[in-house]
């Protein structure tokens, strides 16, 4: 398959195929060793800034020796305005940190000392003292000083008590807007067009290409993308119609009940690690990002932090059943009722399979919270490698749950009446949109559970940038060549695609220039936090989009299941296989943990997710 693809690409590229020689030249230049690495003292103190909230448990500070020589660390001192409110929990002696090892200690903040007027450093006069609320916390600051190999290092300490609006509500609203309006809705609308265009490209047809806007003398067609708008307009202008004896309230409620779970369930999807407000242009480390993910000094890139996140998904996804059933029953149409029965029976059957498949992932990673699941994958291995059977079962069951082909018999379309036969116009449009939003959601959930979320494969890209300069060079070189080659192929494909092709070619050349720049200067391992966050979100977006493409490919390749085949696949195929998956996974996990290969899962009170696997961490 790869050979045919390469042959097609070579035929499409023509004389530009020599472009593919570039990465080999670039990787040769990256092989020069760094002569003075041995003598450098490189010590990192994580996190770079400690932020305490009133109910924060003691935070662990880690000193990591990345150099080649042992480094003495001594002289721990807390100074600053509120030095008395912070304390180092374990008494420390000056000691040496071996190369490649870490040393850690915890810092605690005494919250009651910030309450009321207990510490008088901020209270300027008696008048101010009278206005302070005795229950309110004020902000505090201090500095932790250490002496590392003769150099003094400082870690700022900060205590604050931001209101619920600043920590949860405002970031939540902004994340919802970004995720829903910025990603889900555009992607679901794009899928509407992509479904028709991709199916046409797969079936050697042209697809929709006629919707156009004529401005002056210029006609803009955009390969049929305007059909999205025209379809929406068409649905709005259709007659709003309720069957004479239909239950009016339930008939109107059903599309809402189909759309609402599809959107609400996105609350648990993590589309990035975390965003630190104060350090957007600085280079941050993973411990800083974990602190921001806990809500101190930043916000996790996930709309809601629910510890039982996946159970939340099951609960809300079950509501989607109700939308389909209600639609059929409220239509007062016997065939619609039968379609609703088919739909609800199918959805309920496959929910069982989904639930049991996720138990396998739960056993391996030890957590139901999606953000922590992605971190667990980054610490061990992606879900698709550790649980390949669960991936296939889950993907199949999720496609069946959302009633996409080849499991779309309830809606039928070409052969049988479905449950929304009495719906027309925008009421039907809501069902349609809900189905595409569920396609996006299934892709997002599979990315989170099995494909490592927002991370690049093989640990290429961490919280501060690429793992090593050569990784950055190789990545940019290969990505640049791939994008440039596709751009050239698109440019040569048709006269109208030249602009798109030229843009892609420009992006590819930019990537290659970055690779060359990195080859000369070793750039790439220390990137500003904002760039890292954007790369994470972009990676997540690309993975979700690729899975949506895969779902459309599956839809237009496979023939539809007959209803009895569908039910027997769910109950006699997926259910026993997922139970077997759970049993085998449990046995393997128990055997490996008894043998000591897998460390025990972190206790729920642990602050940072990365402490469990570091050598030399204090127990």
């Amino acid at each position, binding site marked *: 398959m790869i050979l045919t693809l390469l042959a097609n690409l070579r035929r499409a590229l023509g004389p530009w195929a020599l472009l593919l020689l570039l990465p080999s030249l670039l990787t040769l230049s990256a092989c020069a060793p760094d002569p003075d690495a041995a003598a450098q003292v490189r010590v990192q103190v994580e996190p770079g800034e400690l932020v305490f909230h009133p109910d924060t448990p003691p935070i662990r500070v880690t000193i990591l020796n990345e150099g080649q020589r042992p480094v003495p660390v001594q002289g721990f001192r807390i100074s600053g305005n509120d030095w008395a409110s912070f304390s180092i929990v374990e008494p420390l002696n000056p000691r040496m940190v071996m190369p490649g090892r870490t040393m850690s200690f915890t810092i605690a903040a005494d919250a009651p000392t910030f309450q009321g007027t207990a510490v008088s450093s901020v209270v300027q006069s008696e008048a101010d003292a009278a206005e302070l609320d005795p229950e309110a916390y004020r902000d505090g600051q201090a500095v932790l000083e250490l002496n590392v190999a003769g150099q003094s290092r400082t870690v700022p300490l900060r205590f604050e008590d931001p209101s619920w609006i600043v920590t949860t509500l405002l970031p939540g609203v902004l994340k919802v807007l970004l995720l829903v309006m910025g990603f889900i809705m555009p992607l679901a609308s794009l899928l509407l067009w992509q479904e028709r265009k991709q199916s046409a490209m797969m079936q050697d047809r042209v697809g929709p290409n006629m919707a156009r806007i004529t401005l002056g003398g210029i006609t803009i067609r955009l390969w049929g993308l305007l059909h999205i708008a025209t379809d929406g307009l068409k649905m709005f202008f259709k007659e709003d119609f309720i069957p004479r004896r239909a239950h009016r309230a339930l008939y109107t409620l059903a599309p809402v009940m189909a759309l609402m779970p599809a959107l609400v369930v996105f609350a648990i999807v993590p589309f990035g690690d975390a965003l630190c407000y104060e350090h957007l242009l600085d280079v941050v480390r993973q411990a800083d990002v974990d602190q921001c993910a806990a809500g101190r000094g930043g916000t996790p890139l996930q709309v809601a932090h629910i510890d039982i996140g996946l159970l939340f998904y099951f609960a809300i996804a079950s509501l989607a059943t109700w939308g389909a059933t209600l639609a059929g029953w409220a239509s007062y149409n016997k065939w619609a009722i039968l379609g609703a029965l088919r739909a609800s029976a199918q959805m309920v059957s496959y929910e069982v399979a989904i639930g049991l498949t996720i138990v396998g992932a739960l056993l391996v990673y030890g957590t139901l919270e999606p953000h922590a699941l992605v971190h667990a994958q980054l610490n061990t291995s992606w879900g698709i490698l550790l649980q390949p059977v669960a991936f296939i079962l889950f993907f199949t069951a999720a496609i069946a749950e959302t009633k996409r082909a080849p499991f779309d018999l309830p809606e039928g379309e070409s052969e049988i009446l479905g449950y929304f036969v009495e719906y027309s116009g925008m009421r039907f449009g809501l069902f349609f949109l809900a189905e595409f939003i569920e396609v996006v959601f299934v892709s997002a959930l599979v990315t989170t559970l099995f494909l490592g979320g927002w991370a690049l494969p093989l640990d290429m890209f961490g919280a501060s940038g690429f793992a090593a300069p050569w990784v950055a060079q190789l990545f940019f070189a290969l990505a640049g060549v791939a994008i440039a080659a596709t751009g050239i*192929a698109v440019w040569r494909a048709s006269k109208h695609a030249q602009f798109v092709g030229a843009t892609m070619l420009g992006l590819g050349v930019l990537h290659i220039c970055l690779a060359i720049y990195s080859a000369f200067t070793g750039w790439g391992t220390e990137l500003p936090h904002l760039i890292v966050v954007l790369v994470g979100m972009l990676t997540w977006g690309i993975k979700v989009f690729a899975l949506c493409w895969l779902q459309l490919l599956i839809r237009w390749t496979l023939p539809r299941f007959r209803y009895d085949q569908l039910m027997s696949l769910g109950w006699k195929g997926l259910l026993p296989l997922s139970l077997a998956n759970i049993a085998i996974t449990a046995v393997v996990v128990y055997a490996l943990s008894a043998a000591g290969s897998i460390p025990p899962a972190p206790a729920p009170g642990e602050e940072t997710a990365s402490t469990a696997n570091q050598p030399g961490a204090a127990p």
Partner: protein
Amino acid sequence: MTITVKKVSLQRTAADQIFLPAILRGLVTTARHFFKNTLTQGMGDVDTIRYGEPDVHVEDYYPERFRGVHRLMHRDDGSVRCVACMCCSTVCPARCIYIHAEDRGGDEEKAPKSFVIDELKCVVCGFCVEACPCDAIRMDTKRHMHPTETRADAVLGKLDLMKRGTASVAKQGGVGADYRSTDPKADPRFDHDPR
């Protein structure tokens, strides 16, 4: 008489039972079509003819023997080649050709005074073209008869039919018995015989 039952096994392997290898092969096939059609020139394998688009000329897609509206060819002096021999109107199965003959004047051949084809009756069979001995009538205009508002507009007279006609490459009076040795392609006006 005993009935023998021959059991034929389904010959289904474990891989067949899972269906996944076959599904993957199918997905690879459709993905190959997808990439070929999106990325190669002229949209790969897509053979759709885009009728109605501004730069698509349907005449390019018609086969060479396509039969369209009739046309009457001219002689070198601009007069109509037709000698009113009535072969075409005789052979027409739809009886849609009506010819009145007249004297050509100066030549022993006749000429049609009126040559009317009722395109509404025409079944586009091409017999008239095969029957004509003079290469006077052709149907190679590469156009359909367009819809008209009234029936009368579809009845085409001699001048309408001659409008699309050009000088024929046929030699008046014939070439002679050795006509095969004369290369028909040498004449640049010869535009419809693919041999």
